């Protein structure tokens, strides 16, 4: 069985936010409006975090795109009281919007703050939305799904054409949109895949690895220019 994962090369990331916008369009992520944004309620499944480089304040900014890391041992699914978030057999951590009671325990438990809450009813179904992704009601938690609907579509197509799912057929919207090709998506269990090859790179690291959450989004550190090998 496939194990879907992602490699993000921080050396290539320019912080252009194309992944963020592609994600919002693909997944019907609501625009919450200025008032709600000021209150800190922006929903952004993919978020580009910025940090001042230590030792070079005001000179060098570092970018880190952060989707849901789809941990293999996710702290969020453990604490869900109603099985509204769980890790599926292919390693994708999913949300069941119709099941969620909105207790926000998963948000409190996620060390990466990858979960977002619908504080109000931010949108209704309307033309122009992606019909493959359901619109979330108020009061439930949502987050990056690795564009799971794309996997379902690709698999359906392969089944109709009577063949196996080919590598590269299923890819997330952010990976597709990245102009610097910093985001590589694929099957980590296939040792020949790009994503598995990059994950073995000596530059590879995982966010907050010491927590033992085993994220399947793997970062490649910045190059020599930033003082790291």
């Amino acid at each position: 069985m496939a194990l879907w994962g992602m490699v993000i090369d921080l050396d290539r990331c320019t912080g252009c936010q194309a992944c963020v916008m592609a994600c919002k369009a693909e997944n019907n992520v609501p625009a919450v409006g200025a008032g709600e944004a000021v209150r800190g309620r922006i929903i952004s499944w993919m978020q580009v975090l910025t940090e001042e480089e230590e030792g070079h304040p005001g000179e060098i900014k570092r970018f880190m795109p952060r989707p849901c890391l789809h941990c293999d041992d996710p702290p969020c699914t453990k604490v869900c009281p109603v099985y509204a978030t769980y890790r599926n057999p292919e390693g994708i951590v999913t949300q069941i919007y119709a099941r969620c009671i909105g207790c926000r325990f998963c948000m409190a438990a996620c060390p990466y703050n990858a979960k977002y809450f619908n504080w109000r009813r931010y949108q209704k179904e309307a033309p122009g939305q992606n019909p493959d992704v359901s619109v979330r009601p108020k009061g439930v938690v949502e987050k990056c799904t690795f564009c799971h609907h794309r996997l379902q579509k690709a698999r359906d197509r392969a089944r109709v054409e009577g063949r196996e799912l080919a590598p590269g057929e299923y890819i997330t919207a952010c990976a597709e949109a990245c102009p610097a090709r910093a985001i590589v998506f694929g099957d980590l269990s296939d040792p020949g895949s790009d994503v598995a090859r990059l994950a073995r790179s000596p530059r590879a690291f995982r966010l907050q690895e010491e927590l033992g959450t085993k994220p399947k989004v793997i970062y490649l550190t910045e190059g020599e220019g930033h003082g790291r090998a």
Partner: protein
Amino acid sequence: MAAREPGGRDAALFAPIELTGRGFYGVVAILFLFILWGGVAYWVQFEEGLGVTGLHQPVSWGFYVTNFVFFIGISHAGTLISAILRLSKAEWRRPVTRMAEVITVMVLFIGAGQILVDLGRPDRMMNIIRYGRYQSPLLWDATSISAYLTASIVYLYLPMIPDIAILRDRLQKRKLFYTVLALGWTGSERQQRVLNRAIAVMAILVIPIAVSVHSVVSFVFSMTLQPMWHSTIFGPYFVVGAIFSGIAALIVAMIIFRKAYGLQGYLKPIHFRYLGQLLLIMSLLWFYFTFAEYLTGYYGGTPEEMKVFWAKFTGPFWPFFWGMALTNFVIPILCLVRLGRHTIAKVLTASLSVLVGMWLERFIIVVPTLSNPRLPFGEGIYWPTWVEWGELAGSFALFALFYLLFTKFFPVISIWEIREGREVGLKEVEERLLTYLPDGSEAELAETGRRW
């Protein structure tokens, strides 16, 4: 009946049930105003979503979770204190236990209700029953709190049966109500044996259940990996805090009803002195736990922990943190060290201070951790809106209303236990005391001493 024996012994204990004055309706009206505020706030929140609160990303838990921990903590007053006093045969417990047990039952409803207020989808509450999963500490809470609620209702009810029988025989009104609840109590030997045995079992059973309740409440935080939550001492730390705030709530309730119902003859300064000493011990114990918890975090000094640590000590949460240190430790210690004079005023000051302090303590545990995420997000500051204040005010008012209504139906001090204290307690204590002392005459004892 009351007219036939004017005054009568313990008349003060029956008075609130027999007569209802204007003061009662006045208080109820004020409480209703606060409850209305809470009700309107909840209705708005139900319609609009949790967006009407001050919660946001990353501070997704705020007042409601703080209230949940706080109110469930108060509930430990009750039953735990009363059970320990009963088991240790502390004779001064007699006028105290009932009030403590009532606090527990009433406040548990309020505490459990906070979770429902906090849910984004209260309409899907039943999902917890249908699809609940025991890996989540929230389900541990649900189980433990329902066990505690059941146990504390039973533990409140059992020692009330003889009192209900007294009311059944004395009052003309609510005849059926008291008859049913008195369970045919006649005070026969067999009935007394059954009741005493059941109370003893409940007093023992309720202690581990109470400890489990606040342990699993703390596990909601400590089972996550978050800085300053993921701590092994959270279980006992929360239990100590719970008992601490519980005693304070008990003292406040006792002083209010003492004044309102004229119970000065029953609740004497000595009771407040003993409870004040208990509060003092808990304050020291609480300080010890707090010290241990923060020193461990500080000494280890991992960057994530330190971010939260400094947010509490010098950052945006410093007024709450140092306010907590002042109200939970400095003020109670100053008030309670010497209780010789002005006992009640001092104990009341300390208790009110501890109630504020323990609420701040719960707040300072819940919010700063959330507002300082591990990844570079920038600190999230949390300001509650009128909705959260409304729920807080409404919750306190609802608790007070429940308590007040209880006192209109049942005696707030256990009548039969007071009578028992007068009739058999005195003799029993004397006999018990004799069994503590060495046997034999003084000469014999002196003889034994010389041989050694």
